[in-house]
């Protein structure tokens, strides 16, 4: 029996294998093209037959979820013929499930896709997102948004070029990386809020006299990117950073300026500006430590503002130091843009939805629910508190400064490459030259494969 059993089992195994190998090659099934798009587009959807619009978003936290619920309800009220079916997941979950969802026969109509090349770029390349230029012209989206912002949802040549080409999505909120500070500690040191980069670095030195001034938790590898980004913004031409960040050919990591930026970060570590064990500290633990009174400064994104205000009240402020020419160049971007899938049942409805949730009225809702609206930012700024500072900085950066891309957009693997290189740099295992070479290998390998 035993022997025969084995024969049977292996027979089944082999049979399964044959069936599997005979099945279609991966990627040739699934993925249905839209069948209702005739080329004619319309911005009036009140006459559309009753239908369900499926939306996948990642607005799961407090104020984010609240604005989404309010706007969805308002949309359904305005268009009783449309029902929104919302599927909301965390950022990480959405990122990993979207690939599968988009190739499904029953793909969602509107999805929030991360800007970078490993998400939106890959989807564009695979033809799974619909270009929105025709709708942008009808709805006037290019007037609504600054070019600085729209470039991060723009791809050309079927995903080969990032930052120019066709528009694929619209974000609701902005993000900007800057410096949070404790007002009382700065006052104790007898310092003003730093305006320029040299003000900031001398404040760092002064504040580190009796203990580290800067809190950083880099166990997850990406947080140090939000320290390196603003430093790089001081040393390197924004056009070069944009090319490097978007993974377009024509720039190089192995430049003297990039080495200077890396050297400055390493000097900060050596000078003891950071808390001990940066690479072994949790991101959350670091900002919470800052919130409870450790350190004078925290370099981080605007998304921390609400939590820090809860912890520190009036004591917390936010600024971004300017470059020599007086303008601000810092890392930032937008929330995940809302895009229309090419499988969308009715792209007119999907476009109307995106228009609705990014309209000027929607920006009011976003501001009321404690988010940082991507448009009308300065005008909607609250009168006081750290959020007022955040709105001001974002307004200045998008209007007169340079909003530098998150560097991990560059290539599908750049998030890991950068994260590991930064940990190496902070640990002192590599010098600035070796650091930039590590990054250049990934960047150059990708851009040369592009051509």
């Amino acid at each position, binding site marked *: 029996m035993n022997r025969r059993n084995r024969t049977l089992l292996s027979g089944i195994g082999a049979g399964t294998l044959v069936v599997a190998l005979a099945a279609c090659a*991966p*990627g040739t099934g699934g993925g249905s093209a839209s069948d209702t798009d005739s080329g004619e587009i319309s911005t009036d959807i009140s006459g559309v037959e009753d239908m369900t619009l499926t939306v996948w978003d990642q607005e799961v936290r407090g104020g984010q979820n609240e604005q989404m619920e309010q706007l969805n309800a308002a949309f359904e009220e305005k268009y009783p013929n449309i029902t929104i079916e919302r599927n909301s997941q965390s950022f990480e979950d959405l990122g990993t499930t979207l690939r599968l969802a988009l190739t499904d026969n029953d793909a969602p109509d509107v999805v929030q896709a991360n800007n970078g090349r490993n998400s939106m770029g890959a989807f564009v390349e695979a033809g799974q997102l619909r270009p929105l230029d025709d709708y942008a012209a009808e709805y006037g989206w290019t007037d609504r948004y600054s070019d600085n912002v729209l470039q991060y949802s723009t791809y050309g040549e079927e995903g080969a070029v990032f930052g120019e080409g066709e528009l694929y999505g619209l974000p609701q909120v902005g993000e900007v990386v800057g410096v949070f500070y404790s007002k009382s500690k700065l006052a104790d040191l007898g310092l003003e809020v730093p305006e320029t980069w040299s003000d900031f670095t001398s404040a760092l030195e002064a504040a580190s006299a009796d203990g580290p001034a800067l809190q950083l938790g*880099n*166990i997850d590898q990406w947080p140090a990117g939000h320290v390196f980004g603003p430093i790089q913004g001081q040393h390197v031409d924004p056009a070069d950073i944009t090319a490097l960040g978007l993974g377009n050919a024509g720039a190089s990591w192995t430049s003297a300026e990039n080495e200077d930026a890396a050297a400055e970060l390493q000097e900060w570590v050596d000078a003891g500006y950071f808390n001990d064990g940066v690479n072994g500290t949790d991101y959350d633990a670091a900002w919470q430590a800052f919130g409870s009174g450790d350190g004078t400064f925290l370099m981080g994104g605007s998304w921390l503002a609400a939590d820090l205000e809860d912890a520190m009240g009036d004591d917390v402020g936010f600024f971004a130091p300017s470059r020599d020419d007086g303008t601000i160049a810092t890392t930032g971007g937008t929330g995940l843009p809302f895009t229309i899938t090419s499988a969308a049942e009715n792209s007119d409805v999907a476009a109307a939805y995106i228009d609705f949730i990014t309209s000027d009225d929607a920006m009011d809702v976003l501001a009321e629910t404690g988010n940082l609206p991507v448009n009308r930012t300065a005008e909607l700024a609250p009168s006081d508190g750290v959020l007022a500072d955040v709105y001001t900085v974002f307004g200045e950066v998008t209007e007169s400064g340079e909003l530098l891309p998150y560097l991990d957009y560059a290539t599908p693997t750049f998030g*890991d490459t950068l994260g590991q290189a930064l940990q190496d740099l902070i640990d002192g295992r590599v010098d600035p030259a070796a650091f930039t070479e590590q990054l250049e290998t990934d960047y150059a390998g990708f851009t040369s494969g592009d051509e």
Partner: protein
Amino acid sequence: MPGRSTRRSGRAWVPYAYLAPALLVYGVFLLFPIGRAAQFSLFEWDGLGASTFVGLDNYVTVFQDGRLLEAFGHAFVLIFFFSVLPLAIGLLVAGVLNRAQVKGLGFFRTVLFLPQVIAMVVVAVAWRQIYAPDGVLNGTLRALGLGHLARPWLGDYAFTLPAVGLVGTWVATGLVIVLMLAGMTKIPREHYEAARLDGAGAFREFLAVTLPAVRGEITVALTLTIIAALKTFDLVYVTTRGGPGTSTTVPSYEIYRRAFETGDVGLATAVGVVLTAVVLVITAVVNRIGDRS
């Protein structure tokens, strides 16, 4: 007995009919996905668009990519922490518990087994707190006047892999102890008496009587823990995400990263197939050695 054998062969299909539902489920949910994965591994595919058949190129990459080889190297280091160390501790503790006839053995067994019951993600979150720069471990070291030993355990290039491995030791030891105790209680008392009459001490007794008797249990323990070591994912994902640098990457994490984050499904499945083969070979070797009694 000709009648009997005829009856038997006449109903030969009956056992298979009983097996069929389970086989079907096994085939649909296990064999088919494995076959499909093996097929994917022959393609270059980003998980989205069309795919290109590349033959065995992905497998060549697996054995040439420094990052992947490093990940496999880390997995072999983890075998020491997940299997060898727990086995040593388990044999020692079980030997003592068995010999000393401790009261409340059931209680100790439950406590020691507890880490096995807790989900690995929970374990990892807890240890991440313990290993934090101002966590319990460093706090204790400083309180004992050993502050110079305190370090960011999960951010130190030399210590992170052992630190992660020791979490595995903590989890696996309970399982190994329970297995060893179960094996040792089967040993007849007379064997020990005989050994003692021959003048054997505690250590000699352990080598001559206990160890050979639990050979089967050792094989089971090694098989289970080596598999756990090689397929470690959640522990690394939660504690370090492969860092600092690449010092704690493991094959399963690389599979996840390549399949879901960087869109390299073909290579990811190739790594999966290689990992499966490595697991099968190692456990086959362990069982071969264990059976040879």
